[in-house]
């Protein structure tokens, strides 16, 4: 593959910055907006990789619908900025950072030599044409070879819609909340 262009490197840096902001920010609204930033720059990165359909779908669905849901719910619930230095939280933070860092190191150390062996890191010229990337090619695959996952995902969406509608009803049968039952 060709060397990365300056635009791609800028987009990578932006995506990483926004991802770090999602995780490190105390204010949930800024985290949600940073998630939007990550998803949008990722979509732009798809465009630079000549995957136009996937990029458009990413911006339409991920950055334009899912992220809107996140921002909407955070604003609806009016979450306040959280405190990071909560006592008793230090072991969890250490565990999390260790897990993330060790996963990164493990993958980098194990995947990169494999890629090198198969010659995937050489600067080959790979291009994406309409035939390989366009909506026609993807939908032919989805409707022939991956028909079962496609239908199962459709069922999953239907179940999700029904679940959301049920959970959204305020008129749940009145019962004492279990939080009040426990007296400890």
């Amino acid at each position: 593959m060709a060397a990365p262009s300056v635009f791609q490197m800028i987009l990578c840096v932006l995506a990483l910055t926004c991802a770090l902001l999602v995780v490190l920010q105390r204010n949930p609204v800024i985290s949600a907006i940073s998630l939007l930033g990550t998803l949008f720059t990722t979509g732009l990165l798809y465009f630079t990789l000549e995957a136009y359909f996937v990029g458009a779908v990413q911006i339409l669905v991920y950055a334009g619908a899912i992220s809107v849901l996140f921002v909407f719910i955070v604003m609806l619930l009016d979450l306040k900025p959280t405190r990071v230095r909560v006592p008793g939280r230090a072991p969890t933070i250490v565990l999390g950072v260790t897990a993330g860092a060790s996963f990164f190191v493990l993958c980098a150390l194990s995947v990169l030599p494999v890629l090198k062996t198969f010659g995937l890191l050489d600067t080959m010229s790979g291009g994406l044409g309409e035939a390989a990337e366009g909506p026609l090619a993807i939908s032919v695959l989805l409707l022939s070879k991956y028909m079962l996952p496609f239908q199962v995902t459709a069922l999953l969406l239907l179940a999700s819609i029904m679940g959301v509608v049920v959970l959204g009803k305020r008129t749940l049968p009145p019962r004492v909340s279990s939080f009040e039952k426990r007296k400890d």
Partner: protein
Amino acid sequence: MTQTVWSTLLVVVVAIIGMTAIPVMLVVERRGSAWMQRRSGPNRVGFWGLLQPISDAIKLVFKEANLPARAHRFLFILAPALAVIPPFVALAVIPLGGSISINGTEFKMQAIDLSVGLLFFLAITSLHVYSVLAAGWSSNNKFALMGGLRSASQMISYEIVIGIAMVSVVMTYGTLDLREIVRLQEAGAGLPAWGFVLQPLAFLLLWVCSFAETNRLPFDLPEGESELVAGYHTEYAGLTFALFMLGEYVAMLAASAFMATLFLGGYNVPFVSGAQLLSFLNGLGLDLNVSLLPAFVGTTLTVHLGSLVAVAIQLIALLTKTMFFMWVFVWVRWTLPRFRYDQLMDLGWKALLPLGILNIVITMLVTFFLAKGF
């Protein structure tokens, strides 16, 4: 003249089109609404009130652009930017004309030439929701927050209906490329192949939902002047408010251009196909290459005059259709009353969404039986 230079030039052209639409729309809105309400609108500034946008702009610049006491500063300033930028980007993907032949090679009149232009347009207009949410929440004002949340849920609901209407449009044309859709609409004698003949229900759905997407009356509740102070832009004054209005007008322009492209034949002149227009102009004696740079400059830049005039005529055709839709936007705003919020959501989910699905089913059946040679 390389493709990069040409694309940059077209991006500038699109930006200019967007920016000039705003003063035009300001005059049209104020004078047009005045005419509909049997009064005379602003007619003091300039001849027939045509310089009114300039005085509006000067007033807005000199007003204090405030920042509320405990508002979230970053989001408060980001929201107008999020309102202005997506409509311009969406406008850039509309095909403005055929192709101009410069230096012998054909350059297409489309700032962003994507094979999935329709999807890209929907994607960018879906980013408009964030300006409303950010403005509503960061103002630290209950009315603004309520207006913002309401507007966001309204825009998301009607965006879904637009998506469903677009499914049947894509089924009819078989492509997501806006240029190809315009080219397919010049078949036959021109007018009978226009989109609104092939997909009338999708046209109606897109038209109605464009009102909801741009927060125009009758879907005006989030910025309803009499209900919610000014909705999500209550706390904005001066230049930041001007940016919101700018974004709204350019969003209207983008939506109108989109409808004109999909359903009214785009840049096609009615009853005349692009090739016929070009041959007609060539027959008029315009089949010559004009050099744009004087001889002593090193590079040559020749433009085929026939194609240039053809593209100009097509651009005028597109702008005429777009201005028709913009006029209807203004017309409906001063004619219909506002929907109540629950009526609005009922309309979106219980009336328009089933209609969209019905349209998909009908299109599916018709396309299938036509393909089978029924």
